[in-house]
């Protein structure tokens, strides 16, 4: 940032340093949409600790590695044993790794929004051209993208491995595409839930605990109830119970429409009719999360 130039002086003259003082800015001002994109990229980088301290890189990077390592091992096994198929379906992978995904959203959602609330940085954003909606969209999109990277990367590892193992191309591509749709929906849903919970409290610790609690308690309750329902032979209710936790919701959607095998007890996923309800509930939840975030930030102001 060359501000003080030692000016080349004619011989005989004394060398002087000219402080050219304050310079005005006449360049372009790129406005709202640019500011929103900047906030998006800053938040997305922040979700992996980039641009932040070394300490804050550890957990997200570690979780990312933990997500990918099993996929790499599966691929290695498939290649070595010359198997006809991958040990795990693309759509199933996220369900198996749900604990890691929950941990990631629990740690990064508060990082994204609670910090701004806690350190009262929010007023600085709103004293600039962006509006509430820009802030909410940028933060939501950033966390959803970060989650998509986390959940899609292992699928990519599986896919590349499957092609290396010379598995059927069409089959694998279809499975991979279905898996991507599934994790995209999962990313949107989990990011929304995580942000809504985290945006309530300026305390990061509370945010982390609350997100973990909501995700695990709902899953625990739903799977317990489903197990009871199966024992009592009321398998019809298993599908309906699955609507009440985020991960079983995703499971239901993908079993009904994305060719996945359900992880529900008895392996009975929802029927197509029930599947429509699943999709509607999932989309409704995502919309509700967005609406709640907008409401939350309308009040924050300065």
């Amino acid at each position, binding site marked *: 940032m060359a501000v003080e130039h030692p000016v080349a002086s004619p011989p005989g003259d004394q060398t002087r340093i000219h402080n050219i003082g304050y310079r005005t800015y006449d360049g372009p*001002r790129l406005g709202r949409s640019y500011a929103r994109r900047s906030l998006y990229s800053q938040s997305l980088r922040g979700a992996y600790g980039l641009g932040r301290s070394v300490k804050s890189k550890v957990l997200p990077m570690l979780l990312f590695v933990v997500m990918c390592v099993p996929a790499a091992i599966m691929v290695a096994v498939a290649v070595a044993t010359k198997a006809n198929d991958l040990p795990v379906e693309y759509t199933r992978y996220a369900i198996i790794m749900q604990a890691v995904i929950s941990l990631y959203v629990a740690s990064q959602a508060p990082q994204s929004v609670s910090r701004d609330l806690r350190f009262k*940085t929010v007023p600085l954003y709103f004293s600039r051209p962006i509006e509430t909606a820009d802030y909410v969209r940028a933060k939501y999109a950033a966390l959803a993208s970060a989650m998509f990277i986390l959940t899609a990367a292992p699928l990519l590892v599986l896919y590349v491995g499957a092609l290396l193992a010379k598995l059927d191309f069409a089959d694998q591509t279809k499975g991979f595409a279905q898996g991507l749709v599934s994790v995209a929906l999962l990313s949107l849903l989990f990011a929304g839930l995580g942000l809504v919970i985290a945006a309530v409290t300026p305390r990061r610790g509370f945010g982390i605990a609350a997100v973990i609690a909501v995700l695990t308690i709902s899953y625990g309750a739903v799977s317990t109830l489903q197990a009871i329902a199966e024992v009592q032979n009321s398998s019809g209710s298993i599908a309906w119970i699955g609507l009440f936790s985020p991960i079983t919701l995703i499971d239901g959607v993908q079993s009904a429409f994305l060719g996945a095998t359900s992880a529900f007890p008895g392996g009975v996923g929802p029927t197509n009719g029930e599947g429509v309800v699943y999709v509607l509930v999932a989309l409704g939840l995502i919309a509700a999360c967005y609406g709640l975030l907008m409401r939350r930030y309308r009040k924050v*102001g300065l």
Partner: protein
Amino acid sequence: MVRVTTVYDVTVIATESLSKRFPRVTALDRLSVDVGPGVTGLVGANGAGKSTLIKILLGLSPATEGRAEVLGLDVATKGAAIRERVGYMPEHDCLPPDVSATEFVVHMARMSGLPPTAARERTADTLRHVGLYEERYRPIGGYSTGMKQRVKLAQALVHDPQLVFLDEPTNGLDPVGRDEMLGLIRRIHTDFGISVLVTSHLLGELERTCDHVVVIDGGKLLRSSSTTDFTQTTTTLAIEVTDTDEHPDGTRAVREALHARGVTVDAGSGLPGAGHVLLLTAQGEETYDLVRDTVADLGLGLVRMEQRRHHISEVFTTDTDTDEQRKEAVGHGS
């Protein structure tokens, strides 16, 4: 306001019977005020409506009644355009502790719409102007209050606004930090050409810094006038002299001598060193010469002769008191 700045010589802020009512409180009550370019102080006790006014002026909170314009733009409809040209430094802490000042201010510059390269250049420039050098690469968490205030100021200036709102910028600073901050605020206008609206509940510090002072109380306008009007309607001189063998009571001798020349002198009672200080009203340049000559004729030493400026806080008494009472208050010195 006579000062012409890079901003066109127009009204920077104009409000017209601006009111803001909350269910239980009236924060602003039919406030009409015009602010020109330069440094303007917005004075009022806590809860007088200063922050509410800033929120409305930034287009973030709708007024209940009346209208307001900032830089010629209506706050009700042109909020985003106003916020692009205006900087805001909040009263409270607003800095994340785990990033460096450089990173934070660059991010804020981009949030104001500056392209990445320009954001970096302007950040380096601005941090240097507010007086942050090597420490700008360290996390903000380790900064002193004074340094944090500078970062807050830098983020308000980084996009080269035409106007900045500074909400209580001297809060929490020690006397030296306070003076430095006030000097910096002065420079924002004189060197950077940016108009300033600075709030404070301390009247004294604004008289040194501002061209113009707006006083509000309970959401109502108490007074709006230039600082010189406030403090220099008349000048009071304070004089202190030495004693000599010839005149064991030098102060008295000077008073009598001046009295003989037709100048009324007040024995600055109630002041530190009362009895040794003489107060008189200066009628212009001649008074200074007269005092000098009188003291010299008596063979005394002139220890000091200084202007006593009237304190801005008198505005609170003048609002309710009559003009005559005010003059009296001025005559007794501040």
